């Protein structure tokens, strides 16, 4: 319940931000994003591969989460 309220508050704050003040102008224009659009700049170019590697580490380590991928549970002892 507490986490749902926290997320909902964050969402409402984000939603109200442009309405309450003028949004900053993009400091990187669309025509300057050629490098950023290069596939080598993707955080997750191969989702299937990255999800598998996250799973392989998560099964053997105590930490989990904040990797960007969503996984199901398993009885991986």
């Amino acid at each position, binding site marked *: 319940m507490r986490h749902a309220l926290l997320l909902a508050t964050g969402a409402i704050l984000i939603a109200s931000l*442009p309405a309450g003040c003028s949004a900053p102008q993009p400091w990187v224009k669309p025509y300057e994003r050629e490098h950023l659009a290069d596939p080598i700049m993707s955080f997750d170019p191969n989702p299937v591969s990255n999800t598998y590697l996250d799973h392989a580490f998560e099964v053997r380590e105590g930490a989990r*989460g904040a990797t960007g991928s969503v996984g199901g549970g*398993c009885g991986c002892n």
Partner: protein
Amino acid sequence: MAALFVLAGVGRAAVLPDDRADLLWHDWSGGGVTVDGPSILVRKKVTDSLSLAANYYVDMISSASVDVLSSASPYKETRRQGSISADFIHGNTTYSGGYIESNEPDYKARTAFLSVSESMFGDLTTVSFGFTRGWDKVGEDIYPHGYAAGGRMTTWVGDADHRNWQASISQILTRNLLLGINFETDESDGYLQSPYRSARYLAPDGTVQSEPQVTPNTRTGNAGSLQLKYYLPWHAAVDGNYRVYHDTWGILAHTIGAGYTQPVLRSWTLNANVRYYRQSAAVFYSDLFPFEDSQNFMSRDRELAQFHDISYGLGATWQFHPAWPHWLEKGTLNLDYNRMHIAYSDFHDFGRPGGSPAGIPLYGYDAGITQFFISLWY
């Protein structure tokens, strides 16, 4: 669940993921365990605003790990997982959802997830919120006549529920620099231990004996990560990442990694990465308890021990443009290999109960992680 939201202001439409299919073969080998199998993903836009994806994944497990050998015989098992997901875009907003089902003889897991992401400030910033809900059913396999004779019987020993909340921001900092920040909270309750593991204690006669593990039936963890990616002027990319994790079981973990991506010639891309992880032990963990029933909660799960691991990886990708069939835009062949070394600070391989703990070194092992996959865009 986070409220859905729509933003006014400067922005361009969100973009659906590319139509693609991936066929991957994965292989883990180390610590007496071999796990391999396929992972197949197919994604396709069905309208201008809706993309669907399906994934089928298999783990074929052959295990003779120290945990297995200390109480049972080597075994083989297969886990199959299927998932479906959808991405829907409306203006600057992307709504995603999906369902994952995992089945193995002694563990069933159902997971549902939803997320919303919004790009803003001229697509410089993307904010995402997500929620994941999991329902697990935990069982224990026994072989009344021995493993070799077959006749497996599964006893269902408990359920585990999971709730995860995710929040992330992706930010373009400069024309060459990207930033990603992720937060995740996960809450689990129910049967959260392995029915096959046992704790060890030092008996009055100086031998190591076993007793049942008892772990708490709730666990809450928080993780935060930061990732940077920088475009180098000779057409390459370097990235770095850091994650911190802490939970109510007392585990504090740090992960730090770095990677380098370099296109070479016309069709090849090489990449290298390194990752270092270390964690402290859970407060109720011990490799060898001082006597039987020494505390309310006791665990000897290696995953809850104090340890560190380091992995190095190399990968190569070859891109091709098939002349046939005409609806294929491009494809890649990929080979990745990671080598992992894990060293425990407080775990020894005592073997079967009844032995002496004297002279046994700390446990560690090396593992190789191989991935070979082909990706097709259409």
